[in-house]
């Protein structure tokens, strides 16, 4: 059951990562008319269309991560500390903190995408911060799982 939850958590994280990366790159580096290469197409998305999906995916992934966290605390972190692999513990601790800050930004993220599209700087900064938080969390989750999964 824990493995299934961890894998589902990871799959949701992949979807969230993809959506936020499309949206963030499209916001920071918009596609110009006539650009047709792969990177331009990757950026050429309707950013506002991703907003609700990002919020739902973020909350769902966060809740699943919060449940899996109990297993991490019992079965993963103590052996890492015993092995003096403290940098891995530190990376995961930062993941907890960053995700909490991201969670609190979601109402503002929704507001500035749906209700204040003219506030480009604010919308861009919130989106980029969320994308960086999700990228960090995704990579750290992988590192911790590779160092010591549930097995």
């Amino acid at each position, binding site marked *: 059951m824990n493995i299934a939850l961890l894998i589902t958590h990871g799959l949701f994280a992949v979807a969230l990562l993809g959506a936020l990366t499309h949206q963030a790159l499209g916001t920071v580096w918009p596609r110009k008319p006539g650009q047709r290469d792969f990177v331009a197409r990757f950026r050429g998305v309707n950013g506002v269309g991703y907003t609700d999906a990002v919020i739902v995916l973020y909350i769902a992934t966060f809740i699943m991560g*919060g449940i899996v*966290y*109990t*297993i991490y*605390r*019992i079965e993963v*972190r*103590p052996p890492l500390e015993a092995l*003096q692999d*403290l*940098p891995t*513990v*530190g*990376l995961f*601790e*930062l993941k*907890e*903190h*960053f995700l*909490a*800050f*991201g*969670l*609190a*930004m979601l*109402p*503002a993220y*929704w*507001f*500035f995408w749906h*209700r*204040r599209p003219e*506030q480009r*700087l*604010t919308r861009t*900064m*919130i989106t980029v*911060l969320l994308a960086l*938080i999700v990228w960090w969390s995704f990579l750290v989750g992988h590192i911790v799982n590779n160092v010591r999964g549930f097995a």
Partner: protein
Amino acid sequence: MERAAPAFAVAFAIFYVLAFTFNYTPFTYFPALNEIKLGVVPGSDTVGPPIFWYGWLVYSILAGLVGAAVALVLPAKLTEKAWSLLVWLVPLVAIAYMSYEARHWFTYNLAG
């Protein structure tokens, strides 16, 4: 919403840093026992490791709601521009601070 949503993010981030620094939590969860104890309770060999993070989140959400309510009372015209800046600047500073606070995880073997 224009003031409440950013104020929530700002108040949450500020209180989360305080909750982490001074360990303000309404409860401690012990996953090994599946038990919640009120206040800050340290872990041990018998009860296992404690989780304070859930409590920090609960307190920070409450602080965020209070911050949002206060923002609604403040004059809109004076504060609107500030919120659109603070909504990302405060979490960014909080992230930088937490990263600095976590440095001991990465430098422990350099001290000795």
